[in-house]
C-alpha cells in the first residue's frame, strides 16, 4: 500500500475540517472491509489520509425509541446491530442484511454506513434500508443535511457526498403497527458471496389489506434501485399472493441488469420477479405477526 496518514478525530467538526482540508485525498475509515481492500489494490492512489470515523462518538450511536425510530451511527459494525435485542425486535428486515454481509469476521468490522458509502450496486444492506424509508444524515463544511437513502448512490462507487462531507448516521422511522420487512438475495453458495440479485421490501397492513409497501433491488442497475411503482401498486390491495405478483412483475420490468460472471441479464430478470415475490410474502407474514 502507498503511504497514508491516519487521523482519529474526536468530533464531527474535527473530522469534517480534516476532510475539507484534504478534499478528494481523504477518506473516512469505518470498518475498513472495503476501503482497505481498495487502497491495497491501488485503485485509490490519490488518497493519502484516512480519517477514523470510529473515534467520533456520533458515529458509534445506536439509539432506538418506539416513537422516534432508530438512529444508527455510520461506524456501527454489523454484529452490534444484530446483537442488539431492541433493534432485532423492531427491524428484522435490517437484521436479514446485517447478518449476511460477508462472514463472521467481516461482520465484526463492516458497517451499514460503509456499505452505503461504498455505493456498490450489489450492496446487501441498501435495498432494505431504502424499503424501510431510511435517511442518511450528512455533516459537512456548509452544514448538515439529510438525504433519503434511495437518492444517496448516484453511480457505481459514486454518491451525493461532496468533498468535506461525511455520513454521520442513518435514521429509520419507527416501524408502523402491522408492518414487516425482509431482505432476500440469491447467491450460488450458502454464504460469503456477492448478490446475483437482492430484493429488500417492506409492507404495512391495515384490516387485511396492504396500506403501503416499498420495494428496492440490488445488482440490477448502476445503483441500488428503488422501484416506487412496485410498492405503490400494492396500496389498497388485499395481502395475497395475487397482489404480490403484480408488484413483483413491476420490479422485474424496472430492472436493467447486465450480464457478467455472476449471471446473465435474462437470469437476473427472472430472479427479480422470484425474489421480490418471496420477500414480499415473508414481509406480509412478519407484518401479520407484528
Amino acid at each position, binding site marked *: 500500500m502507498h503511504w*497514508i496518514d491516519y487521523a482519529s478525530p474526536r468530533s464531527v467538526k474535527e473530522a469534517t475540517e480534516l476532510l475539507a482540508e484534504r478534499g478528494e485525498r481523504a477518506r473516512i475509515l469505518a470498518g*475498513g*472491509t472495503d476501503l482497505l481492500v481498495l487502497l491495497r489494490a491501488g485503485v485509490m492512489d490519490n488518497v493519502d489520509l484516512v480519517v477514523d470515523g470510529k473515534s467520533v462518538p456520533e458515529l458509534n450511536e445506536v439509539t432506538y425509541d418506539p416513537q422516534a425510530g432508530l438512529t444508527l451511527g455510520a461506524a456501527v459494525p454489523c454484529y452490534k446491530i444484530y446483537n442488539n435485542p431492541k433493534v432485532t425486535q423492531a427491524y428484522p428486515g435490517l437484521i436479514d442484511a446485517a447478518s449476511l454481509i*460477508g462472514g463472521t469476521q467481516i461482520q465484526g*468490522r463492516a458497517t451499514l454506513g460503509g456499505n452505503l458509502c461504498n455505493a456498490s450496486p450489489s450492496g446487501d444492506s441498501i435495498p432494505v434500508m431504502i424499503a424501510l424509508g431510511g435517511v442518511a444524515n450528512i455533516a459537512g463544511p456548509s452544514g448538515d443535511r439529510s438525504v433519503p437513502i434511495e437518492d444517496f448512490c448516484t453511480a457505481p462507487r459514486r454518491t451525493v457526498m461532496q468533498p468535506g462531507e461525511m455520513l454521520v448516521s442513518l435514521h429509520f422511522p419507527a416501524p408502523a403497527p402491522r408492518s414487516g420487512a425482509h431482505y432476500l438475495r440469491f447467491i450460488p453458495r*450458502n*454464504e460469503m458471496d456477492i448478490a446475483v440479485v437482492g430484493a429488500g421490501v417492506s409492507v404495512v397492513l391495515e384490516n387485511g389489506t396492504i396500506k403501503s409497501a416499498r420495494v428496492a433491488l440490488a445488482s440490477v442497475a448502476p445503483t441500488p434501485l428503488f422501484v416506487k411503482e412496485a410498492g405503490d401498486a400494492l396500496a389498497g390491495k388485499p395481502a395475497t399472493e395475487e397482489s404480490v405478483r403484480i408488484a413483483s412483475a413491476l420490479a422485474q420490468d424496472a430492472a436493467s441488469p447486465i450480464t457478467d460472471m455472476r449471471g446473465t441479464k435474462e437470469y437476473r430478470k427472472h430472479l427479480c420477479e422470484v425474489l421480490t415475490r418471496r420477500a414480499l410474502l415473508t414481509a406480509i407474514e412478519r407484518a401479520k405477526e407484528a
Partner: protein
Amino acid sequence: MSGKTHVQTTINGEHTDFLCEPRQSLLEVLRDVVGLTGTKEGCNDGNCGACTVILDGRIVTACLVLGVEAEGAEITTIEGIASGGILHPIQQAFLENAALQCGVCTPGFILASKALLDENPNPTEHEIRFWLANNLCRCTGYDKIVRAVLDAAATMQEV
C-alpha cells in the same frame, strides 16, 4: 508525510507497545513488528480468514485492520491459546480429528472456533458451518474441521 505511530495494546494478556506506519495492517504488525508469526497471511483481502485474531472480543481478519486502529485494544492470537504448554481443547480436537494438513488455515480456524464456543458452547453443525464461512481450507475439506469443533465443544462441556 509523517513517521511511525506509537501504539499500545494488550496481546495475549501482555501489555505490548509497537511502532508502525499508518498503512501497515495489524497482520503485518503482528508478524513483522511484534514477531508473532502464528497468524498467517492468505488472501490479504478478508476472504480467507487465515489471519483471524480476536480483537476486543470479536474475531476479525487482521489484514483488514490497521495497526494504528489497535490502540488500546485487547488482541488474542494463536500464540495465546494454549496455556503452560497444554493445548487448548480446540487445538487437541484438531489434532485428534486430523483437521489440518498444511496448517496455514489452522490458526484462523482455531481462533474463530474459540470465539464461537465462547459465545455458543453447544453449537449445531449448521451453526458451526455458518460461523466458519469466513475461513477457507484448501487441504482437508471442512468435514474434519467441523467434527473437531463438535468434539471440542463436547469436551469443554465435560470440564
